[in-house]
């Protein structure tokens, strides 16, 4: 066994400083598990994209004939989005079925994202510094067009309330 060559390090990061390493090391922190992590896990599965399509056609978002048109292209009014968000919140609280809760959670966040992108309006009580990481986490596992909506929402400033 060649012990010398085995100990070589990846050259691109050979000069990584302690300071840089500490900063990157903090990315490893997960913190307490959030309710949204269950949705992120579900969307991360191989059939996650198909699952979201199905969830939007049967869950709270089905109040719109065409959820894509309403949420992505912005045809939904602010009041409709608030109703969708409230309905999602209500289902999350009262349902004991995991799938139903995940479905409602997806609608809840998509309504918030659509209100942010198309109406510049924050329709939930969460602070932006709490909400934005959640939206970006969801965007990193959501299908393309939904990912775009969520990521744009995270970086869209809301109007002063």
């Amino acid at each position, binding site marked *: *066994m060649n*012990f*010398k060559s*085995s*100990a*070589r*390090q*990846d050259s*691109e*990061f*050979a000069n*990584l*400083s*302690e300071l*840089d*390493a*500490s*900063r*990157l*090391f*903090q*990315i*490893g*922190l*997960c*913190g307490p598990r959030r309710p949204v992590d269950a949705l992120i896990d579900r969307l991360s599965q191989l059939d996650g994209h198909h699952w979201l399509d199905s969830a939007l056609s049967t869950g709270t978002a089905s109040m719109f004939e065409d959820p894509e048109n309403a949420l992505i292209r912005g045809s939904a009014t602010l009041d409709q989005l608030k109703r969708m968000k409230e309905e999602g919140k209500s289902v999350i609280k009262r349902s004991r079925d995991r799938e139903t809760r995940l479905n409602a959670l997806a609608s809840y966040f998509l309504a918030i994202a659509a209100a942010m992108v198309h109406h510049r309006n924050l329709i939930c009580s969460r602070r932006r510094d709490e909400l934005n990481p959640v939206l*970006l*986490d969801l*965007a*990193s*596992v959501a299908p393309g067009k939904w*990912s*775009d909506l*969520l*990521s*744009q929402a*995270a*970086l869209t400033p809301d109007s002063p309330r």
Partner: protein
Amino acid sequence: MRPNAFPTTCHTWIGDRLRSAGEGRGEVNQHVMSVYAWPLTVYFRGTRDRWLGEPDEIVQGFFADRLAREHFFADWLQSGLPLRRWLMNAFCFYLNEVKRTGKRNRVEPGPTDEQADSSATPEEMLDRAFVVSIVRKALQQTHERCAVQGLEHHWRVFVRHHYQSAGYQQISKEFGVDAPRAAVMARTAARKFREVLRDLLVRDGAAPDHVDNEIQTLLEVSGA
């Protein structure tokens, strides 16, 4: 007679590799050398024994001697220690053996009054170097994963933002994507980096439920 088999209750990456036939032991040794050579080298430089020889050669000699021992990792798992501490302890024994050999060969100790580079203890220096080494390893493995999954651009955006501290507006110009998309790309690669990093800490002996605690502890040692 000591048990020959690796304990079947130890469902760790290292335990699994050692129980498997073929290249398992070699994979474990490669992993240990690639992650722990640098921390042990830094540790050695911080001890009063640094007159014994070139740090790289001493550490390689240690690996050659100890990693070939059949029960080395089984003994580690039974110790309950983090692997880096187990290796450090074993390294201390090895240094004593080298010193004894040197005495038999009438090799005189060199000067030890030279100050070490840091006011930190050798153990703290080992932990700091371990953070650097494990982050470096995690970066390398994350890059490989991203490449296999066709996410090379995600990887580059991650490096630009998290390592080189470039803002998303700047990155969006460099990569021809809008800033929100760049943020998502960085986040996708960051999730993979987090998974790899946490897995490496579990390989070191951290309980999966306590990885956050382990990170916090090591960050405190690092002064972050």
